């Protein structure tokens, strides 16, 4: 018998405000080490992928290893489009944060640092596939060429908003662009994606579903229910965990516990899972392409942990300087997704600093022009005329009497 007291553990991030960023606890394997597994990979065989990290772009910006080859020789279009998508996303975030600070909208959420995940992923999906995103996957819409007028309309709840002002800004819905209506409740949609994928299989439509969740929300019961359902029925669903290290102010360790990785946790459900450098545009594209091909072949679900960093605040209502070092994002050892792709493209002779600066300015200008046009339809500063009676529409397919009476009481 020892005198040792039984103690609980309370995970802490390696550094807090006033301290230097510290990512020394994160092991980053060399780029290009992991093979491309066969499409019928099983959970057991996925062990090295679940505990390792798939990387294509090395520290010098070279694309290396089997996953680079998997993308083929001609990646120029893919990269040009990807860079444009990511720059556009960053421009939208920049413009909208400013607009929120000016009081033009109530709320906004940025995805700074995570642009590669959705932008690279979406370009590998097929028409009719359905994403079940969280609030930080606007990238999926940008890379689906969703009209910016509709996106900004939603931010401003004006007459260009496809959702008639019913939803909080950033909680988009765009069925025709493969984007399921975002709930805002964490985790709930993970299992809905599994159900949608079951319907894909049952209807034989050859489409797939993709589920999205953040590292913090993997704690929710729906995450576990979804993995079990996917493991049991084997529908064509890609189960994505975007590990951006933070759940508002809560360090990712509070959601991981003593597990090694989120991919490993998914693998524990019997689902083959891979862990990928989410700031590496080419790695994301390659793994997304592999996962989509696996779905097409009917080999069942796959889990992917996208390892990234939430550089921006959680939302416009959050101030990260209260819980993490000031320059944490800049110190992230896997860098910035846009910078990394840019460096690679320059090394390949496809791009230059001048063209980058030019493109950045041009895209920002395009986004600004759209934003101004949409703002002319009304913002919170200049509120658009609303249609109050719209509240009662779409509660049910057909309006029941009690709602009709309430609408009359409202004066319509």
């Amino acid at each position, binding site marked *: 018998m020892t005198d040792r007291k039984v103690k609980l553990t309370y995970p802490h991030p390696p550094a807090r405000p006033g301290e230097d960023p510290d990512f020394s606890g994160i092991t980053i394997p060399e780029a290009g080490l992991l093979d491309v597994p066969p499409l019928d990979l099983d959970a057991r065989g996925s062990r090295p992928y679940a505990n390792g990290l798939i990387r294509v772009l090395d520290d010098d910006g070279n694309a290396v290893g089997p996953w680079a080859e998997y993308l083929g020789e001609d990646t120029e279009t893919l990269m040009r489009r990807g860079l444009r998508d990511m720059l556009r996303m960053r421009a939208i975030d920049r413009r909208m944060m400013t607009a929120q600070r000016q009081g033009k909208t109530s709320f906004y959420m940025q995805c700074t640092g995570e642009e590669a995940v959705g932008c690279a992923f979406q370009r590998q999906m097929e028409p009719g596939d359905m994403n079940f995103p969280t609030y930080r996957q606007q990238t999926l819409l940008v890379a689906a060429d969703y009209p910016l007028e509709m996106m900004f309309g939603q931010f401003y709840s004006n007459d260009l908003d496809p959702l008639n002002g019913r939803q909080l800004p950033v909680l988009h819905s765009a069925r025709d662009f493969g984007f399921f209506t975002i709930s805002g409740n964490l985790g709930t949609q993970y299992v*809905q994606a599994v159900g949608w994928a079951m*319907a894909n299989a049952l209807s034989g439509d050859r489409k797939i579903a993709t589920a999205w969740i953040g590292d913090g929300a993997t704690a929710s019961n729906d995450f576990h229910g979804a993995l*079990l359902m996917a493991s049991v029925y084997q529908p064509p669903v890609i189960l994505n965990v975007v590990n951006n290290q933070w759940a508002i102010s809560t360090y990712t360790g509070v959601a991981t516990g003593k597990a090694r990785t989120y991919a490993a946790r998914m693998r524990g459900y019997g689902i083959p899972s891979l862990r990928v450098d989410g700031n590496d545009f080419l790695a994301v594209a390659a793994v997304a392409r592999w996962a989509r091909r696996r779905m097409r072949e009917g080999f069942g679900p796959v889990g992917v942990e996208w390892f990234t960093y939430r550089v921006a605040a959680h939302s416009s209502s959050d101030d990260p300087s209260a819980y993490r070092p000031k320059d944490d994002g800049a110190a992230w050892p896997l860098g910035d997704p846009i910078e990394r792709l840019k460096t690679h493209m320059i090394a390949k002779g496809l791009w230059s600093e001048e063209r980058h600066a030019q493109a950045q300015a041009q895209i920002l200008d395009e986004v600004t022009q759209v934003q101004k046009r949409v703002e002319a339809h009304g913002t919170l500063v200049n509120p658009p005329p609303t249609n109050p009676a719209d509240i009662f529409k779409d509660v049910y397919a057909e309006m029941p009497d009690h709602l009709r009476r309430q609408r009359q009481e409202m004066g319509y």
Partner: protein
Amino acid sequence: MTMIEALRDAMDVALERDPSVVVFGEDVGYFGGVFRCTAGLQEKYGEERVFDTPISESAIVGAAIGMAAHGMRPCVEVQFADYMYPAYDQITQEAARLRHRSNGQFTCPLVIRMPTGGGIYGGQTHSQSPEALFTHVAGLKTVVPSNPQDAKGLLIAAIEDPDPVIFLEPKRLYNGPFHGDHTGKSVSWASDARGDVREGYYKTPLGKARVTREGAAVTVLAYGTMVYVAEAAVQNSGIDAEVIDLRTLLPLDLETIVTSVEKTGRCVIVHEATKTSGFGAELIAEVQEACFYHLEAPIERVCGWDAPYPHAQEWDYFPGPDRIERALRKVLEV
């Protein structure tokens, strides 16, 4: 036909008519459900249409929402209404709101069946009546059938409905009508006209109540098991009461209720669920708002006591015919 057979028949008809209908839940596949409501359906329609699930109500309902949004028509079973709480988030904040929050881009034609109510010595986790937790939520419809005929027609209508429907099946009525006397001989549906169920396809519209007994002295509003208990109380008392079986709580058939109360001027409301914030409170509010100047007496409620549903004291808890009879006499005294 028992109510179990009628419900099975409804799902059989729906599965036969529409390939997008699927049935699943805990124990509903190979075994056919703990109450046997889905017996034989997997054998007939195959595992892709009727299947067993893990014990996770939130996953059952969550997956069903995804399927419904895709365009299928899932009809899922939650083994007891008492087990629905883990799925409550999915039901109230997801299923109920898909249509509205997506401005009609996504809809949720989903039925969630669950056995409800007491009278079977089920204790606190097999006896609850949580209907008010559903009627309080915008976007849901809530149905409580009281007999095999209605159960079949209402379930087919629920499956065909474009919106999510909570389908509460009074388990005490599964095998026969129950008049509230647990010491009496159990009665089978074979001896009751409402157990005579038509073959094939028919719908009983949602949102339509039914007058089960016409009368002039007082209106009794009831649903589920309490329809029979109320009828027994009326018969025992000799009072000329009008009994209305609400059948659907939301949308509510206010017209039938108001017509009756304007005629009788008195109203007694009966439900098994706990009294405070129960559906009876909503009914009282609606009735007084619409019929205030016709009322001759305060409206009475006969409900489950505001305590967890007990095991050994079940019949002290259950709102039996004697309590209903007292309430009838009380509203007639004024």
